[in-house]
């Protein structure tokens, strides 16, 4: 697998052009309904078996965007795919494909409030279970008071 071959395979199957080169291919605007399909394809066809990270970005009015990066360590192909979520902030879970997605999706839920459909155990991971709000959202001010200081 080479980055060029990966780019053309993605183009063929998903009709999207990946940007970048080598280990840093980026795939923008993947529809959420093809999210799981894409990562199954990345793992099996592109050989991206290494799960690097999963996170989200809050683009304010334009909604939340989930970013996930996987990599083919043997051939040097890394792909970061992004998907824009709707107002209800739901995203399909990747836990069935990558076991590493478990904690990362929990962290993403904790910090952004993204609900991962199909995650077996979606609860907060870094903050306490009774925490209010999701701190990495842009509307959560850094000096937001929280119990017991409120």
């Amino acid at each position: 697998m080479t980055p060029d071959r990966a780019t053309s395979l993605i183009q063929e199957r998903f009709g999207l052009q990946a940007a970048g080169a080598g280990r840093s291919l980026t795939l923008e605007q993947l529809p959420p309904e093809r999210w799981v399909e894409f990562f199954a394809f990345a793992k099996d066809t592109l050989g991206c078996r290494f799960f690097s990270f999963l996170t989200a970005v809050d683009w304010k009015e334009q909604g939340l965007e989930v970013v996930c990066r996987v990599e083919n360590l043997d051939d040097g192909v890394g792909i970061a795919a992004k998907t824009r979520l709707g107002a209800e902030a739901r995203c399909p879970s990747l836990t069935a494909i990558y076991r590493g997605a478990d904690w990362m999706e929990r962290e993403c839920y904790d910090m952004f409030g993204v609900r991962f459909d199909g995650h077996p155990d979606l609860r907060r991971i870094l903050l306490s279970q009774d925490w209010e709000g999701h701190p990495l959202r842009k509307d959560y001010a850094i000096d937001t008071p929280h119990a017991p200081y409120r």
Partner: protein
Amino acid sequence: MADLEARKVIELGYGGNERLVMNMGPQHPSAHGVFRMILTLEGETIVAMDSVIGYLHRCHEKLGETLTYAQYPSIASKTDYVAAMTSELAYVLAAEKIGKIEVPKRAQYLRVLVGELQRIASHCLWLGTWCLDMGGALGGGATVFLYCFREREMVLDLFEALTGARLLYGFHQVGGTRYDLPEGWAKHCRETVDHIDRRIDEYESMLEANTPFLVRSQGVGVISRELAQEVGVAGPLLRGSDVDFDARRDDPYSSYPDFDFKIPVEAAGDCYARYRVRMQEFRESIKIVRQVLDGLPAGPISSRPGLKSVGQVRIPKGEAYARVEGPRGEVGCYLIADGGPKPYRMKWRGASFSNLSILPHIVPGHKVADVVAIMGSVDPVFGEVDR
């Protein structure tokens, strides 16, 4: 909280007869930090494990959005406080990647130099504390711990002479490094690595001829090649599971291609394989340190003017993922810049976070005593897990 745990116990099939739920932590000497494990036992064998993390959470990613490119690098050291040089470097590399900022050759060499010294210091801490955890097997165990700390102190002395701080440095900055080597430092550094080089033979002879040590580490906590990649563990865990990947060679940064070093890989995937990988890394790091000192070019240490105000560094709009091969593996920083003096979003891929998430997959099936050996071989730093 209580409800969630009760639910978990029912899912795990707790019948109240032969299974026992045991709490380990959050204050437990083998945790090397604050980490709670909820173990379900059948006799002394673990059948399921749940982990509770976050005790050290400071929301670094939010902090990163509120601090400027000039301020944050010295805070970045507080994520992985055992290898502070690594996380600082990942952050500045990401900013430099977006801004396409050149780094002078001397600064690149200095970055490699401190990175490798940091690896030696961090591995010393790992070896010492791990052997302390397995104390009974090592006739008291404190011997290796004290020896390792003695050597680690020597490296910290070097850092203190270089930056004025022993643990949290603020050495890296966008465009280069903040400090240059003081007079006589290079000579002192050579003597230190020569000394440590000799000591490593001593550690190995103490451990590898020790049957209880071998019994407690060989065949314990096996991570398969497939599982290692799928969970995304990095560094010695990945290379101990027969995956030949190291960012220093495969995705090089800071002039690593100028140096000659090997990437140790072991196939077994157990605690002993991870131990062997780290012991060989000690020697490779020493080799790199010597090469840097031999070839250190003259010239400036930063491509940017000296800092006069916090908002001085501006990075154009863009995003980048930069990673550094730290002592615990791939430390990555995903940075989105919007053209201002602060990033729009910053994500840490903490090596320890990913490495620790392997535990629920490998611990079941082992005895309680093995958990301590496995934890130590994972080498988590909780500042980086919880960020």
